[in-house]
């Protein structure tokens, strides 16, 4: 007869694990930043965001962000510099969560990001923006929010650690999830036109979005010709379950310049 773990030990360990998972909750970010000058929006886009409109954060390969130092929350008016102290070794980014309390433009740190609010936005969810910033947004371990003397705001800052999770693998050995710093998985998460979450084959997507064609371009003329051929057209590819074979809907790539408003109705 094999002895088992004691119930007390099991329960305490379980509670600890649950606590750890909840403590390291994913912090979702919104792209409401405007970039002044040559800001690198790519940092915030975290790769694959265009296609993984599916719930980015619960997909394999998606980011997991954990707080690695105490949050600092400050409410104030006008320009202010807030000292965060030295970054813990595990910190990869600074989490910035700002809510405007008056109509104004707020410059956020040293990276060139800013939030502009109207009177309607002030103090509401639409007047709030948050997300991870590179550590370079700090100067001497301090974050500067710059705005007009009468502009009021609430700001929360925290050092965080961001990591990409691993892609999952289906029974056929294909990886699935969303793209990250490691590239794209074999099956990329999307929301189908019927609203269901599923996956498209990377090869299909590259064919449809021009990535595949671009590999064959040998001159700018090739690219222009290709663009003309596709002008105004949309391309539909099959969306599958994570097994890569069970179809559940379609995904449409619209004309490259426009929003996907012309997607066929589900």
């Amino acid at each position, binding site marked *: *007869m*094999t*002895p*088992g*773990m*004691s*119930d*007390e*030990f*099991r329960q*305490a*360990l*379980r509670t*600890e*694990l*649950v*606590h*750890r*998972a*909840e403590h*390291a*909750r*994913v912090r979702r970010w919104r792209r409401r930043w405007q970039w002044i000058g040559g800001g690198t929006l790519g940092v915030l886009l975290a790769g694959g965001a265009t296609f993984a409109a599916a719930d980015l*954060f*619960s*997909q*394999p390969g*998606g980011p*997991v962000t954990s707080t690695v130092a105490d949050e600092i929350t400050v409410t104030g008016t006008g320009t202010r510099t807030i000292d965060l102290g030295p970054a813990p070794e595990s910190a990869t980014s600074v989490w910035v969560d700002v809510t405007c309390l008056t109509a104004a433009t707020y410059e956020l740190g040293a990276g060139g990001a800013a939030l502009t609010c109207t009177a309607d936005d002030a103090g509401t969810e639409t007047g709030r923006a948050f997300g991870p910033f590179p550590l370079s947004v700090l100067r001497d371990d301090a974050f500067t929010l710059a705005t007009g003397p009468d502009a009021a705001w609430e700001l929360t800052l925290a050092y965080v650690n961001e*990591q*990409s*999770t*691993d892609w*999952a*693998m*289906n*029974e056929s050995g294909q990886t699935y999830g969303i793209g990250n710093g490691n590239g794209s998985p074999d099956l990329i998460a999307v929301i189908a036109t019927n609203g269901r979450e599923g996956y498209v084959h990377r090869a299909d997507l590259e064919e449809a979005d021009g990535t595949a064609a671009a590999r064959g371009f040998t001159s700018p003329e090739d690219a222009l010709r290709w663009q003309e051929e596709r002008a105004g057209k949309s391309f539909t590819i099959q969306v599958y379950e*994570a097994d890569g074979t069970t179809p559940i809907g379609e995904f449409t790539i619209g004309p490259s310049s426009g929003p996907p408003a012309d997607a066929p109705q589900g």
Partner: protein
Amino acid sequence: MERQVTEAESWSRALGGDGAALGAVFDLHSDRVFRHAYAVLRDVHDAEDATATAFLELWRRRSSVRVIDGSVLPWLLVTAANCARNVARSRRRYRALLDSLPRGEHAESAEREAVAGMPVLDIVDGELGTQLRALPRTDYLLVMLTAVEGYSTSEAATAVGISASAARTRLSRVKARLRTPAASVPAPIGEEVGG
């Protein structure tokens, strides 16, 4: 099959900060992981520590955990086996936490055994068990995952982090080396566990 989908979903939700989902993964595998640790350590307290360490490491290293066929179990088993083989060292990181966890009575758990469904000790006990435990680490893990846990050679290879052909080579070498005839290495067990 459904169990795997459910686990993959739970793991995915856990990665998203869902504590209850991580709890579900723990409930699914804690007995199996404990039994493997116990098979090596033969001490309940040590096996609890190895089990706890495996799950805490599962969370700490969540971004690089290999999910095989929708399951984190192979990763957990490999980690628990590694912890069990060097329990003193593996405890170090979680020393304070492990010391703080309550140690209750370790009743013989016929009920849990029926749930876990796999008499691990019966399989790896005796002379064969002694020989298996004496194998080099990677070989031991491969045998444990294939012969005891019923994973395919390529799944086991992925869990251990080597190529499938290297795993095949190692496994045939192990079979040749074990004094016990290869035929007595147990056949793979089915997927009745945890369903």
